[in-house]
């Protein structure tokens, strides 16, 4: 267990070495937040939509901008690259559970992202725009929800990367994944904006657990427990699936390279 804690700390340190990338990412986050906000304001300014007024919409945008780099809404491709080059052999002969080890590193990375990618856009939004803070008691629940969102996202990215064992090049799958997350995570518009008939469908995917769930917990859109339980369900499913897929990959698939 200690090994995974140390790995998480290393993940934190690894990302903290890239200071300029961090500043650039922060600036991009805020700039895109302003764009998304402008579009959404044009809609919500006419009157509330699906329970979103101006303050809720602004909070949704800034939380989304902050969370997307913490949770990571696109494929990261790191493991995929190692599979393609064959470097994954090094990861495979270590006395660890590869999926757990990568998850630990990702938790470290996310911890660093909370400081530099989540903090600034949210503070910026809270200072300059109408912002809806939840009651204090919700904040720890929100933190748990973000943790679960990270677990689901990691599990999905791990599965996505694991396809490389069979496909060798999974960039097509990655592109498809990014298109899906953009729509189904609630990044393009809040999931509540979908037509009534589509709501049960979009809420039943693991994507909803990655962004919209923690945002809705923060905005106190109903009791947090249904959100959390759905997130926990998906986290367990995707992580377990990843474990099985990795075992199968190792037993059946050729590791590349001489």
């Amino acid at each position, binding site marked *: 267990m200690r*090994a995974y804690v140390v790995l998480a700390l*290393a993940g934190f340190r690894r990302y903290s*070495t890239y200071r300029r990338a961090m500043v650039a990412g922060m600036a991009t986050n805020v700039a895109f937040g302003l764009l998304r906000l402008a579009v959404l304001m044009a809609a919500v300014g006419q009157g509330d939509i699906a329970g979103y007024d101006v303050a809720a919409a602004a909070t949704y945008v800034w939380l989304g901008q902050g969370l997307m780099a913490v949770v990571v809404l696109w494929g990261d491709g790191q493991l995929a690259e190692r599979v393609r080059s064959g470097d994954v*052999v*090094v990861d495979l*002969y*270590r*006395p660890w559970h590869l999926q757990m080890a990568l998850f630990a590193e990702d938790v470290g990375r996310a911890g660093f992202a909370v400081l530099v990618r989540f903090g600034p856009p949210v503070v910026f939004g809270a200072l300059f725009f109408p912002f809806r803070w939840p009651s204090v008691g919700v904040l720890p629940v929100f933190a748990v929800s973000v943790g679960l969102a990270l677990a689901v996202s990691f599990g999905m990215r791990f599965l996505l990367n694991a396809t490389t064992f069979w496909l060798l090049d999974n960039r097509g799958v990655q592109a498809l994944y990014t298109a899906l997350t953009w729509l189904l995570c609630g990044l393009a518009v809040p999931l509540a904006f979908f037509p009534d008939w589509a709501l049960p469908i979009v809420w039943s995917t693991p994507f909803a657990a990655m962004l919209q769930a923690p945002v809705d917990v923060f905005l106190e859109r109903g009791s947090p427990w249904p959100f959390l339980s759905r997130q926990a369900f998906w986290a367990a499913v995707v992580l377990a699936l990843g474990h099985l897929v990795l075992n199968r990959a190792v037993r059946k698939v050729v590791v590349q390279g001489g």
Partner: protein
Amino acid sequence: MIEVRELCREFTVTTKVGRFRRERRVVRAVEDVGFDVAAGEAVGYVGPNGAGKSTTIKMLTGILVPTSGHVRVCGVDPSRGRRELARRIGVVFGQRSQLWWDLPLRDSFELLRAIYRVPRGDHASRLRECVELLELGPFLDTPVRQLSLGQRMRGEVTASLLHGPELLVLDEPTIGLDLESKERLREFLSDLNARRGTTLLLTTHDLDDIERLCPRLVVIDRGTVLADGPLDALRAEVAPERVLVIDLERPADLDGLPGVTATKVELNGLRQHLTFRRAETTAAALISAVAARAEVHDLVVVEPEIDDVVRRLYARR
């Protein structure tokens, strides 16, 4: 330490035939390979590209499951006990890195200590020894991505030794290194084998590695073992001839010496290359026969180059 019997590994390769049809073909990368390595040995595992060396290594470390056959490393079935085995062996891949690219070398070592659960004292003393012998001191705090290849390889070898492995598997450890770095690494490894008794299994294309490090050689080609034995014995077997190069004070005719199979004359007869079979005469007998006929200025006995030995082994198939 290593026990390999009738080891086979097949791959299915799909090739395109015509526009839509695909043909599946089974390729045997490793076929009926068998050898044993005892504790404390240093064995060179050589073969041309595509011979099945890396495939064997992957099966020995448990990354690849054999199609059939029997493998035991440190008494463990590698593909079943991969994690247990990983704690007891070290692996160095010359073309891959096990260090954390973005972190200082020191941090990688610290991470490995946690991953392998090495007691702090053991870790510190092993690290101290490696730092001293491999002269890692000046770049311990440099991020790995900024290290030169030679520095990084020294880091890689250290990383693979910090958990005190019984067996060290090296896959082309000297590839791309300059002569001095190669020599330094060889010296370290040979010392490791001699002093600590760490078993070495080494694949390489650089036959100087073998000459310096491995008393025993296993030669593989097209998935099967061509030869297995001490380097000297292999030499005697496939290259039974040695050459005595003699510089004379005055040109002389040395034809018809007993045991000599070929003569090459240079410098108007001042230098002569006498090829002889080691089974038929000794260098000493030949030298005294020459001295009886002419005044000898200088002489040297040339053993067949190891490259030559291996080439002949490949050609023998």
